[in-house]
């Protein structure tokens, strides 16, 4: 409707058409970021007004809320990802929200800049999350089966204590390990090296390395005082 109504909006956005926000996948979002997008905007039907009977917009909202948390955890600005609900005739909502979103993203600058991440660091983070996608989907299917009627209720749940606990238990460690694995794939590193790159305490890194070593994922190479991939 924005088109038919000739409402003018930002030129700094490229649209990808899907039939339902439920089709939007975390891999698409991450691919866009790793391809150089500085923000990803998802627009979909209002909750309860599904064009199909599947209510895929609930899943889209859950995806966005979860990945905002993931982003936050690895040091990416969650404001770079936004979901907005609107009906086909809500041209003004579309225009206002994309304009507002693009303005916000422009203030943040290119991805990585406001986060203080160098290009290779950024790449590492995005790769680490991408690797976890299949796992995160299982977590969503098995452990995050919540259903609410309103966006506020979802927001409340996703910012609540129970969610924090689930996130810490199920995802947080995996994010760190995923990054460590990617680093070690390049070359063996010491605990100190890794702790410096990831900005985490050496003892935390050591805990992950130790656990991973027990599972045979990494091994300690005494000669170099470094850890390397277990299967290399």
């Amino acid at each position: 409707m924005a088109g038919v109504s000739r409402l003018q909006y930002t030129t700094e956005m490229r649209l990808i058409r899907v039939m339902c926000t439920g089709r939007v996948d975390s891999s698409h979002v991450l691919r866009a970021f790793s391809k150089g997008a500085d923000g990803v905007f998802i627009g979909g039907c209002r909750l309860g007004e599904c064009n199909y009977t599947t209510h895929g917009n609930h899943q889209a909202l859950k995806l966005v809320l979860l990945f905002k948390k993931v982003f936050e955890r690895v040091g990416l600005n969650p404001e770079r990802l936004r979901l907005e609900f609107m009906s086909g005739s809500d041209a003004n909502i579309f225009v206002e929200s994309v304009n507002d979103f693009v303005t916000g993203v422009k203030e943040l600058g290119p991805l990585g800049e406001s986060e203080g991440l160098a290009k290779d660091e950024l790449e590492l983070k995005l790769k680490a999350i991408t690797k976890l996608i299949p796992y995160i989907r299982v977590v969503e299917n098995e452990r995050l089966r919540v259903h609410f009627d309103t966006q506020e209720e979802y927001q409340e749940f996703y910012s609540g204590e129970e969610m924090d606990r689930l996130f810490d238990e199920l995802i947080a460690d995996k994010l760190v390990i995923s990054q460590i694995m990617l680093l070690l794939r390049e070359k063996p590193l010491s605990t100190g090296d890794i702790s410096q790159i990831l900005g985490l305490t050496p003892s935390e890194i050591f805990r992950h390395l130790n656990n991973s070593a027990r599972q045979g994922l990494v091994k300690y190479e005494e000669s170099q005082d470094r850890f390397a991939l277990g299967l290399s």
Partner: protein
Amino acid sequence: MVTLTKKPRYVDESKCTGCTTCVENCPVVYPDPFNQGISKNKAIHIYFSQAIPLVAYIDESCRYLKDKTCTICEAVCQNDAIDFNQTEEKIELKVGSVILSPGLEPFNPELRQDYGYGKYENVVTSMDFERLLSSTGPYEGEVLRNSDLKPPQKIAWIQCVGSRQVIEGGNSYCSAVCCTYTQKQVILTKDHLEGVECTVFHNDIRSFGKDFERFYERAEELSNVRFVRSYTSVAGENPENKNVIVRYSTFEDGVKEEEFDMVVLSIGLNPPADYEGLAKKFGIELEEHGFCKIDPSDPIKTSRPGIFISGAFQGPMDIPEAVMTASGASSQCGEFLDYRRGDLAIEKVYPSERDVSMEEPRVGVFVCHCGANIGRVVDVPSAVEYALTLPHVVYAQEQLFACATNSAQEITDMIKEKGLNRVVVAACTPRTHEPTFRETLREAGINQYYLEMANIREHCSWVHSKEKETATKKAKDIIRMSVARVCHLEPLQEFELPVNKAALVLGGGLAGMNSALSIAEQGHEVYLVEKDAELGGIARRIHHTLEGLDVQEYLDDLRRRVYRHPLIHVYTDADVTKSDGYVGNFVTEIESEGRSMEIKHGVVIIATGAEVSVPDEYLYGEDDRVMTHLELEERLAAADERITGAQSLVMIQCVGCRNEDRDYCSRVCCSESVKNALKLKEANPEMDIYILFRDIRTYGFNEDYYREAAGKNVTFIRYEPENNPQIEPATSYEDDRNILRVTLPDYVLGKKMEIDADIVALAAAVVPSETTKEVAGMFKVTLSPDGFFKEAHVKLRPVDFGTEGVFLCGMAHYPKLISETVNQAYGAAGRALTLLSHDTVVASGSVCEVEEDKCISCGACIEFCTYGAIEFYESPQGRKARVNPVLCKGDGLCNRVCPTGAIQLKHFTDKEILSEIDAMISETKAVQQADKVAGGV
């Protein structure tokens, strides 16, 4: 023979592309009728932004038409669409039947200067307000006052304007839709204007529709929203700020005046304009209010055979009912014209499809100017040039109008000449022209799914019209993304499955029988399954309708027609034990009178009806003088002297509903009680009758009977649920007879009142029938929160289910009156016929498919697919998910929940979507980089 008069629009529809260049240049500015005259439009304009066809017309304010002084539009139209030589055209049509859907006319309060409309600037009608709320409205969705263009902070709605009035110029009936549309407006207003105060001055609140009671509660519970029960008038205007002064009275405070920034008049519905002319032209009869005269047992028929009606010409109705009657009218036409079905159909033949799967992509790009629509913002020639530099593009050209017939031919020719195997049309939204261009590809012998539309109009030129350079850059980006995507597209087949042309109708009440008859009359076998020993359903207990229909006589006739119909097979004492299959091909097992059998059918109609609840209050079941409204009707019909001889009779409304457990209105009880009261008065005019109510909901024309009852001294007393009537056996103070004493507060006098009753009738809630849950499970359909069946879409698909091939009608959907049941029964039959009248059902090519090697049989996709399109099956490699393409609707939610990416929505696969994302930023370098990232997935 029907003669149509087509007025000249002075614009050639086949040439106009809806670009609106003419509108911008037209010098005549006048009030826009679509926006209620609040904002301005031009003499040449498109009626509204979603108009079909989306082409301009010229109205009588045009200068050329007045005195031939201006032809600007003719000069600026690049497509020569303006034609001032057009004259009125007569078109003669030979038709077998006619459906009249003339709709309604909003009540015009200006005629009587009601409530200061037309006098005070800030008094608007609900139609005006509706436009103010709309994003395509006069202020683009901002609600502003007429007087100062400021957002109002305090708004009042006045209900029943032009309705429920027996004064000159008013309508005696209830318009049935205003209570709920007002609540909708309140909710939207609260969304639009932060902190706004909303007050609704109302009479009864008539939330009788499905889910309407909840909707009312939602509106009422919003902050700063007041519902005030009061007679209301507009007392004047504050000259300083143009605020409107509303005078109203309440029992607590007496008469009060209050100032509002804006007053909205909730205007009612009038019959269509020129209803008399319409009736004369078609030779049909009207009822007293000017709507069509109808028979409550068949409200779609007019008094003249072959002429049918749908929508509000039957009387005031809401969207779902209008849609039901529309499908119903189609079914009646189908019955009427069945002997000629298919006579005018022509089959189109396409050339056979060229197999290009082994070829490298050879992409052709066609960039459309869309007249000036795209061309004057986007540099089309440079976009064409750019397209030629893209990988796999072997041909590109510009077109003035890609959608024009000659342009389509050009595309077909080029596909053949240049050996193209993929096509990008850079033009407008796929929502309008994708089917056109898919057709073009088919005609060129290429699979239709090898088309991609790059939307450089709605997504570019129209929304960046002042930024030519960046818009051109963006258009190139869009084309690049489309080219990337089109290279990955796969040829898809839309395949066809045979339809079993028989119907299963579940439930042999009024709804089921009418559906069955309508389907059978159109030549289809019908299996009618009834759980009781005889047909008729709850209608067996109803004797008359308010309009005077003899229900038992009607029912007998209906039963006779059903039993005599050679194509209807009736099974009584029957249960469904199992059902399998899907649209077009169901297999259902039933047990009838001890025998079990298997029925094969293409569609199902669920018409399992509803029941009357058994009250657990007001001494029901303890004292035999207390009965339900339906029991009262039965005993009255049997001329039971204990009933007709009663001195005093009390009816209590809303028993067992509109409460926490059953948060809905049973819709029919107010009319039922008024009907019983009138019948009682007929039998015994001396009887004192009291109806204790919360809101009297005699919507539509039934309002006239409510008024009649009040006129016959039936006493209506309102009660609040917190202070509901109390009832106890007692002896009368006057004559020592044994009575039931009913006590309740009198809000008018502010004290307790006592009524001595010989009989108490309870308007017991209508509840879903016992079998509802079981049937829902069997046919994979869902229930709404109140336990009735849930339709696919409340307004747009009121007799369909989300599950294809399954339809719904009657009280199984929600309590309703007999005429409404018949409407919906025909509606369901009409919808069923859209499937049964075809030999096959066609499944879209864009459906999901499972790559079995990747499937880990976790079942996530199956659980999320509410269409029931995915099932497990035992493959040689173990249990795997499998998609039934006929049931898949292509939303792709399953893709998102599959942990291994095993299930993919064709035409929107990850590969296709990612290729578009990758092409978003142009460097080829980036593509390689991205592939490296993707390696990790």
